[in-house]
């Protein structure tokens, strides 16, 4: 609890980046391990953001004048009193005053502790354990840490350099999945696939262009295997896959992204559909175009209204003589199931 108080005092300084590096690291580590301080820290940041967004209101001139008029005489009087005689304490009385001060402070503390606080009379009851609350653990230096997704903020700040990303499949007992990675130490985040923090972490892993493609390739495989069983995958996952489809230079990765999007129809957003249309229009790899048109054909069959740009793209693809025949056939199939709206 003492740690919490100290850390909370540090939070405003952390916000203004006024802490020295050691204290900053300690405060961050404490926040990561303490669920109460996580909430406190989130509230601080939220307030800070709100304050940042508030417009600066100018003081009305009338108020400003009245304020200055009120304080001006007082200031003038203070400035005028320059003939103040300094009080010089006698050397002999100094030790007596210090001793008296110690006695007064000590007595006050004793009185405050034993007299002022009301005593609560507890009614005796039979002891019964209803729940065991785990004590807030102290942070210990360790090679690896396991963090529950629910206890970490969904907001990823900056662009942390995470490496050696590994995934663990859903446990049959509690359906918890795990994502491990190296940051300053080895961290494993566990939680349900639908936890916002987990979704954001996966999105970061998928979209992180600093990392090499094999990591993303494995991530896509795992995301497909994991979220295929989730009824309504978070749209952030499909948006991350759409960004991979748009931006990844690795054709194998783009093929996987398009293929995985096909299996997540329910979570598709407008942006996701646009990415598929872009891939169908422009991707140089025929397999990516093929996966994109298959995904759009599946969408059309499911009765989702496709916007005019999508219909136009499908129409042009179906008639494009130099396009792969299978892509053309799939585009025509998609068009045959569209009911104009």
């Amino acid at each position, binding site marked *: 609890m003492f740690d919490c108080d100290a850390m909370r005092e540090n939070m405003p300084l952390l916000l203004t980046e006024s802490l020295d590096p050691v204290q900053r690291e300690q405060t961050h580590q404490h926040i990561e391990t303490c669920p109460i301080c996580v909430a406190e820290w989130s509230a601080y940041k939220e307030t800070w953001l709100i304050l940042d967004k508030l417009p600066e209101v100018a003081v009305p001139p009338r108020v400003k004048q009245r304020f200055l008029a009120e304080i001006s005489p007082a200031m003038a009087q203070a400035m005028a009193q320059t003939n103040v005689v300094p009080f010089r304490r006698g050397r002999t009385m100094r030790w007596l005053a210090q001793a008296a001060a110690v006695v007064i402070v000590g007595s006050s503390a004793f009185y405050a502790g034993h007299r002022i606080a009301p005593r609560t009379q507890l009614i005796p009851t039979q002891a019964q354990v209803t729940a065991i609350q785990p004590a807030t653990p102290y942070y210990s230096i360790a090679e690896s840490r396991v963090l529950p997704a629910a206890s970490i903020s969904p907001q990823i700040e900056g662009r942390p350099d995470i490496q050696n990303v590994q995934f663990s499949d859903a446990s049959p007992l509690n359906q918890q999945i795990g994502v491990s990675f190296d940051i300053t130490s080895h961290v494993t985040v566990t939680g349900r696939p639908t936890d916002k923090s987990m979704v954001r972490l996966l999105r970061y892993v998928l979209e992180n262009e600093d990392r*090499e*493609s*094999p990591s993303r*390739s494995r991530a896509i495989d795992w995301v497909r295997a994991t979220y295929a069983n989730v009824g309504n995958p978070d749209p952030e996952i499909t948006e991350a896959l759409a960004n991979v489809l748009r931006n990844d*230079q*690795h*054709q*194998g990765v783009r*093929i*996987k992204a398009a293929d995985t999007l096909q299996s997540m129809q329910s979570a598709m957003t407008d942006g996701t559909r646009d990415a598929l249309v872009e891939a169908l229009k422009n991707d*140089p*790899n*025929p*397999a*990516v*175009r*093929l996966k994109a048109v298959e995904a759009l054909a599946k969408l059309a069959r499911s009765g989702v209204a496709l916007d005019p740009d999508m*219909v136009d793209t499908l*129409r042009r693809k*179906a*008639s494009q003589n130099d396009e*792969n*025949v*299978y*892509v*053309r*056939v799939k585009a*025509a*199939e998609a*068009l*045959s199931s*569209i*009911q*104009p*709206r």
Partner: protein
Amino acid sequence: MRPILRISLAAVALLSATQLLGASFATSTRVVREFPIDPAGSVWIDNPFGSVDVIGGEGHMVSVTVDRVITAPDATSMKAASDNIGLSFEGDTKVRLMRTLLPPGRNARWTVAVNYVVRIPRSVNVKIGSKLAEHIRVAHVNGSVTVNGFSGTLIMEGVNGASAVNMVNGRIIYDYAQQPVSKAQVQAVNADIDIYLPPASNVSWVANTLNGDILTTFNVRLPRFSGTIFHGLIGKGGPTINTETMMGRVLVLAKGSNPNQAQSMRQNSANHQPVPSDVMLQPKQIIQLPYFIGDFTSVASIADVTVGEVRGNARIETGAGEVELGAVFGQCNVTSLGGPLNLGDIMGALFAHTGAGDIIVRAARMGGQVTTDGGLIRVIVAGGPMTLRSGGGDIIVRQFSAAMDAETTSGDITLTGDPHQRTLKVTARTLQGNIILNVSPRFGADIDATILTTDPEVNELTTDFKGLTVRREQVGNKTRIHATGKINGGGERVELYAEEGDIQISSQNITPIKLATPKR
């Protein structure tokens, strides 16, 4: 009143009430207008939902009758629809534009059909835009006609001017009252095209379809194919009628002839020199068989082939489609211009190629060649020497027991050697990606591994084996990381080349995959 009568009356009343409750409201309003137009003027009609009839005649006036039919489940929706659907008549004597105005975000609770009947001077040019129409009919017009629609039946009757029509779904019917004197460009995606010509017509005919057939009752002269595009002359030849539908069929009939006597130009083209793209001239096939005894052959333009077991050799050639073979006891030769190939246990030599799509092979016991112009290649067991090529996509081999040659223009290559083999020849090359070679700890080879990268801090060569010498050298703006040497005393040559990626040679205790012996 008798009880039976009372019950009957109650039932009738109940049914009527139910009908009323479930009923929808429909309202129809009619607008009639008349405008003057120049003989060489144009009429543009933009009507997303509803039929359009344009009839040519005499005079200098455009006469328009518009019926707006709204269907809604309640009065509120009806009013909302009625307030939001408008008609617009614009233009001057040179161009008359008629439009149906719909709100951008439509309420799905109501539907509307706006039916236009437009009478115009015969010489006027016509342009029609439509999305969903029961029919679009243009009759007795000598001016040019352009139609762009999505769905519905388009009827062009006695149109003598040049025409260009483009539909997606539905049907297109051209009925020429006299022999064509102008060009016609007819395009569709899924629609069938029917052209009715007087028997003595002189026309140059071009037809193209991927999925359907090209049929005629005319005696076509000089027929020839260029890919899937057919060219021929009807009579002496004349204005070109270009008929193109991707998934539909094209039928050109002499008026008065029996459509059942129409002959396929695809199958009866004389003097045709066979070319590889002839597969696109074969009719569509959908084959689903649990097993096939003997040699199985399928050649089709568009084909979805699923055979559980081929007890012989298999040869499949298709323009587009999905091919799935469970087991092939003999040789397997599958060529597709596009579409995924899913091949099971192939006991003879395998040759598989697709223009686009993934190729999955459960077992290639004798090895073979697997190529795709774009897509992933995944082979679970390669029993014989294999060549794998991808125009872009990963290559994964779970276990190979003979020489392996894998190459992709962009993608990762992951190869796992049979732990029973002490040495194996391997060539793996990716122009953008990583190579991972997993072999048993006692695997021996002469390694020659090269990484060419612009970022030597990120791309690296790692190995669990000792005995390799690694050199780094600058080649232009790239760094070449080159590792050579013998591992476990040497063996077959293992040549790995990766650009902008890693190479990892790892030693693993691999559990071998065992294939079940098939029952013949």
